[in-house]
């Protein structure tokens, strides 16, 4: 994947979508399968019961019509699906994974951590309006699908998850191909290639990359700037609410230690979490001793320690996808908190998680000159 984020002319084509944008995207994927460009497509689909959406790896192209490129919820973070398919090797099948930009970034981040092998996978992203909070959606799925689709038409994010409302990377191109719906003329969308792999796909489908994406870029710039402003404001407010040890302990005091956030997180990939291991199970005299020193000890203990530990591990790679917050039964704003920390930590290293496959994770990239920001000013 190329480093460049500016998609100059010669990388994009305008595609006619008379039958509707969603239908035309599906048609594009079907054509690609017909021509053998892809052997399978990984795309969200509504589950038979109708009350949720799941990622489905489609081999039978007649099933493609049920694919939903922009599902209203994120029940599974797409990177987890890609990792399931490719963790033990690229495989023989050429796969197209149709996902949101944050899912693509998580996939790229996982690739750096050896948890996906993307050689045979083409990552296709879409302009993302956000997704509905899972708990809201489940109250009335049928109605909420309708509400979501209407919001997408107006590109209105007021009903989306709080972390989606402040996402300033909702059209970020990190994968091979991006489908741009913003700024497109009626009944059209942009298809933008971002890598050699993307170019090869276009070649095989006889799509000539010759169109300008000025209008897409302009629209994306507007939306991104607006969201970025809102992000800065909201995260600043959040920081004042949770900053300091007491506030932090209060925020996480609701945590019931279910570890759902960890299980839903696409990046949290350890085989066995330290906090699920015997290493955090201590002999009773240890607890008695702690109770003696502090007067009492709460059970289950160390919930904040778990959150802090997860934050330590994840903040360099967090893509602010919001999966953790959706999964939290106690409605702790984990995704917003992690987003805030991730912004600061990644900022220290000029790093954006999942932006570029060739950018090494800062933990293993040694630079002689870095981290002066956190040095003691008196030294």
């Amino acid at each position: 994947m190329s480093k460049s984020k500016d998609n100059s002319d010669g990388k994009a084509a305008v595609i006619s979508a008379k039958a509707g944008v969603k239908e035309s995207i599906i048609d594009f994927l079907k054509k690609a399968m017909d021509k053998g460009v892809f052997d399978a497509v990984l795309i969200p689909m509504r589950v038979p019961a109708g009350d949720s959406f799941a990622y489905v790896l489609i081999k039978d192209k007649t099933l493609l019509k049920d694919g939903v490129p922009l599902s209203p919820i994120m029940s599974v973070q797409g990177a987890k699906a890609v990792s399931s398919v490719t963790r033990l090797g690229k495989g023989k099948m050429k796969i197209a994974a149709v996902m949101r930009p944050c899912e693509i970034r998580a996939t790229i981040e996982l690739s750096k951590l050896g948890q996906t092998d993307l050689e045979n996978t083409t990552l296709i992203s879409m302009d993302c309006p956000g997704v509905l909070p899972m708990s809201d959606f489940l109250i009335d799925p049928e109605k909420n699908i309708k509400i979501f689709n209407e919001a997408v038409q107006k590109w209105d994010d007021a009903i989306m998850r709080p972390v989606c409302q402040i996402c300033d990377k909702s059209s970020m191109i990190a994968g091979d191909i991006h489908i741009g719906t913003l700024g497109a003329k009626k009944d059209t969308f942009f298809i933008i290639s971002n890598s050699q792999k993307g170019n090869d796909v276009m070649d095989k489908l006889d799509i000539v990359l010759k169109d300008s994406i000025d209008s897409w870029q302009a629209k994306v710039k507007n939306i991104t700037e607006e969201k970025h402003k809102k992000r800065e404001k909201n995260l600043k407010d959040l920081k004042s609410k949770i900053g300091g040890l007491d506030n932090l302990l209060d925020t996480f005091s609701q945590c019931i230690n279910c570890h759902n956030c960890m299980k839903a997180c696409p990046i949290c990939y350890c085989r066995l979490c330290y906090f699920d291991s015997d290493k955090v199970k201590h002999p009773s005299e240890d607890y008695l001793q702690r109770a003696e020193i502090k007067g009492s000890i709460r059970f289950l203990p160390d919930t904040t320690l778990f959150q802090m530990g997860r934050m330590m591990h994840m903040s360099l790679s967090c893509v602010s996808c919001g999966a953790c917050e959706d999964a939290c039964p106690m409605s702790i704003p984990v995704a917003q908190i992690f987003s805030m920390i991730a912004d600061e930590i990644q900022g220290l290293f000029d790093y954006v998680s999942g932006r570029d496959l060739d950018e090494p994770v800062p933990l293993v990239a040694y630079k002689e000159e870095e981290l002066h920001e956190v040095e003691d000013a008196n030294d």
Partner: protein
Amino acid sequence: MERKIGVYICECGPNIAEKVDIDRVIDAVSPLEGVVVAKRYKLLCSADGKKFLEEEIKKHGLTHLVVSACSPKEHEKTFMEVCKNAGINPYLFQLANIREQCAWITDDKDEATKKAIRLTKAAIRRVRYHASLEKKEIESNPDVLVIGGGIAGIEASLQLTSPDRKIYLVEKASSLGGLITNFEKTYPSMKPGSDSIKQKIQDVNKNENIKVFTDSEVEEVLGFFGNFEVKVKNVTEEDKTVEFNVGAVVLATGSTLFDPEKTPQYGYKKFDNVLTSLEFEKMNISGKISLKNGKPPKSVAIIHCVGRDEKGYCSEICCMYSLKFVRYFMDKIPDVNVSNFYSDLCIPGKSHQKFYEQTKGKNVDFVRSSDVDVTKKGDKLGVQYKDENGSKSNLSVDMVILAPAIEPTSDAPQLAEITNISQGDGGFFAEEHEKLGPVSTSTEGVYITGCAQGPKDISDTIIQAEAASGKILSSLVPGRKIEPEVKTSHISESLCIGCKLCLSVCSYGAITFDEAKKISVVNEVICRGCGNCVAACPSGAATIKHFTFNQLYQEISEAVQ
């Protein structure tokens, strides 16, 4: 097993006794679980002290030992030795530093005592979780890898070779000899240069204990002093790789010349008859010094210090070989006029001044100058320069010889990485210490000689080759055993998720990736126990013996209580 922990607090003469209330420490730790004895002693590291400890261990049947005394850097090994002599595993011991960390940092006896109690308690808590570790011994390998087949590498190989030591000499070119093969004569004796090397090359080729690889590059060096694993690739047959083990490595990769095209004022590659010193040596040894048109030059300018400002150092040998060039001319084209343009003449040493005096003559000029420019002037070359008084002058010559700076070969960065040493000023391999360790490097068992370490002449190169050989001969003795690190890293097969982050942070190449199982594996013989992989491992799969998560957790949680 019942733990019987003995705690001994050293007075360290007045050092600890005067600043820490040792009896209070004893009172505080005596009731702790597993502590069977807690005592003070005036100087535990003394012969009497060691004997006392040994007797105590035996008398009380101790299973674990805690000593509160000085820094582990000072006497950890001393007390581990005591444990060994008394029959308990030396790793079932912990040293709490209550001297540097308590007694010496405050005048407040109460504060120092409180901290000493904390540290001693933490050591007691930690030692409970210690595991016995066994030292292993492996045969040290007396063989040596010499990289570079120039005069430095050849000399080192010849010095090192013996029937019980194999030398692997790796040269990237197709034949041995290096730069010196181009020199008709060497200064100051003006004795034949290439002849002396020819004899040495023959000696190398005849010697059955020296294995020569030409057209070859070193691809990998893993391990440590006494036990390096080496991979050598033949560059003409891409897939041909040879692997062998050695105990030490000598880097003798020599040097190359600064590219004068980077200093366009000298007209190199722009005008005919502008040569580098090496091109001139080659022309000379081929038998005829001539201009492009085949005629001998009547006037020559030798420009010293080319690239000196760019590189930021004097290359030491250019003045002397320029004088040697003058001698070539005096012998072969006696009526030629030679003008030397220099910024500083560098002719130190017991015989160089004499050589200079003998070279000066009626047709030989030395001009101290700056801002030298070479231009085309009809059939001739024009040399414009500012003399010492700052006034501009001109000189027409037939030929210009440039003496460019000496710089490390282009593969130096790669070799520095492979052998895990650093590059210093000018990109030359960095010696361990400028004065006290001029041929050693930061990696034990890797030595540097010749121009790879910095510009130098043949005699200095030989001195270094002999010095490096002497270092190896005295330390890498055939039959001697070495003890690999005991406190090595271990990667849990069931926890490793295969992200490979550990591979990128291991400085010793001790970790490999098992593609079938998709997990990382530590080679415990190569691992030095630095702990980088443990810090990088996101999934807690990598742990280091004697510094396990649990040991550290227990120690810290007691200390911060």
